[in-house]
């Protein structure tokens, strides 16, 4: 469409302005993270301090917290994605009584606010001794991820080729074989998107690990950061370095696989 050069020029100004508004705060935290810890440190050691990162890692115990995050995230991703593939396969390719009802039951879980079910769940899991364990932190996130994952995989299986399924069946393949040898291999992009989104949501989750591990024994990276902010109040450089380290794994994944993130969050939101 033809527009005047003035409008085109104005658009570039708007584009750059908004990009700067988004990047500004990120630049602030990154520059704080590399900055001097105090005014005296600035006079003696200059303005560039990459050693903040190992120091924050040490003092803030981010090594341990990140390990907790990785363990929880791997459990949630593996269990939730597997369960979602199986459930999405049933809802997306099989006709049976109650299929529509089941679809709505899972859809409900996408909307339920965490804070509504996490309080009674905490007290019930405390009775069976699952609080302050990796499983207690992972379980509610598995349930939430299954709600979205089933919805996501159902959409994929519904659009997958019917002819392909029928051909495989004529070859004598059972439903298990059709799923794992035909549909899953060609559905790798959809599954990768689900893996990435589930990993991101679990890594970034705050309320569930906060509630499920009151003793702090399964403190994940975001919680470690909040805790660090409360404990370590001298200067902002180390806190900023910690913040950068907590965000970095997901931001790196985003940089390389952003299509999956954007596509997943946009299409995953569009309900029928």
């Amino acid at each position: 469409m033809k527009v005047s050069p003035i409008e085109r020029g104005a658009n570039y100004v708007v584009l750059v302005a908004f990009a700067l508004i988004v990047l500004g705060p990120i630049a602030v935290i990154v520059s704080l993270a590399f900055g001097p810890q105090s005014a005296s440190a600035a006079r003696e050691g200059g303005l560039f301090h990459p050693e903040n990162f190992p120091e924050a890692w040490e003092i803030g115990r981010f090594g341990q917290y990140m390990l907790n995050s990785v363990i929880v995230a791997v459990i949630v991703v593996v269990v939730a994605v597997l369960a979602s593939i199986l459930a999405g396969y049933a809802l997306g390719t099989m006709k049976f009584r109650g299929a529509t009802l089941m679809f709505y039951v899972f859809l409900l879980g996408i909307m339920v606010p965490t804070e509504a079910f996490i309080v009674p769940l905490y007290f019930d899991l405390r009775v069976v001794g699952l609080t302050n364990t990796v499983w207690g932190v992972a379980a509610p996130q598995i349930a939430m991820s299954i709600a979205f994952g089933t919805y996501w995989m159902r959409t994929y299986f519904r659009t997958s080729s019917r002819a392909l399924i029928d051909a495989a069946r004529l070859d004598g393949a059972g439903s298990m074989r059709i799923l794992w040898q035909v549909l899953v291999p060609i559905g790798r992009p959809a599954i990768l998107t689900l893996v990435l989104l589930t990993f991101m949501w679990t890594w970034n989750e705050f309320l569930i690990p906060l509630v499920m591990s009151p003793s702090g024994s399964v403190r994940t990276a975001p919680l470690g950061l909040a805790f660090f902010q409360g404990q370590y109040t001298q200067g902002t450089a180390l806190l900023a370095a910690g913040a950068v380290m907590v965000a970095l794994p997901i931001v790196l994944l985003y940089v390389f696989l952003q299509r999956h993130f954007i596509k997943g969050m946009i299409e995953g939101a569009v309900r029928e």
Partner: protein
Amino acid sequence: MADGTTTVGRSASRRSARSAWVPWAYLAPALLLYGVFLLFPLVRAAQFSFFEWDGLGASTFVGFDNYVEIIFDERLREAFWHALVLVFFYAVLPLVIGLLLASLLTRAQVRGLGFFRSVIFLPQVIAMVVVAVTWRQIYAPDGPLNGFLRMIGLGALARPWLGDYAFTLPAVGLIGTWVCTGLVTVLLMAGMSRVPRELYEAARLDGSGPVREFFAITLPMVRGEITVALTLTIVAALKTFDLVYVTTSGGPGTSTTVPSYEIYRRAFELGEVGVATAVGVVLTIIVFAINGVVNMIGDRK
């Protein structure tokens, strides 16, 4: 498809009998985990909300008292009011900005749009705690925002943004705007790119300007995307927790407390589990109601 009608002979009936449970076998693991760790606790929440319990001792049945408290407890009323204010910052403001931005960018195909899309979407993937820590630094009394204001001669406006009764809630809300605008814009851009070019060409031949074009063509065509954007962002606003927990802890005073923060505080700090779950139930009902209303309005045409 798994009903076995394509098979012939005596195996047909056997297969259909066997296949009736096949879908349920596939559903079982998901249903079990989802049922035990989400649906069941949700039912328990409704049950808890009729009792007074400190989380340790015996509980007493109190009927609807916990719900009545939501209406009469000033702090809880305030929390819901603050959530409503946050809806403006999380949903309304990003929608207005997003509509303007997306329609400008769709009209003139400028270079670097893909890169721009990736940049403005970035806040969506950063942990909210990191966002909160970052903005706490920006809003600090001697932080970059006040520094900037003093630099451009507006030092009179400088203030401790997160310590001021009047400005803290908008300051927290604007963080939500920063996070949500990219998502809304990317959604709307996707919708607008699907609008057939001919519609605009025809409108232009009729002599309509950009403003008419926007209201007559663009807006009706992205109705669906607006519905989705509003649903996502309103729910995000109502569920705000990390941001408030890390930036203000609900303060100063009660000026930024929100329902989610009250749920956490009452259940785990004050030992008011019944009230906390009642707030959770009300919040869930509000989320579902808003979802319903927004989608109803969105589907009307």
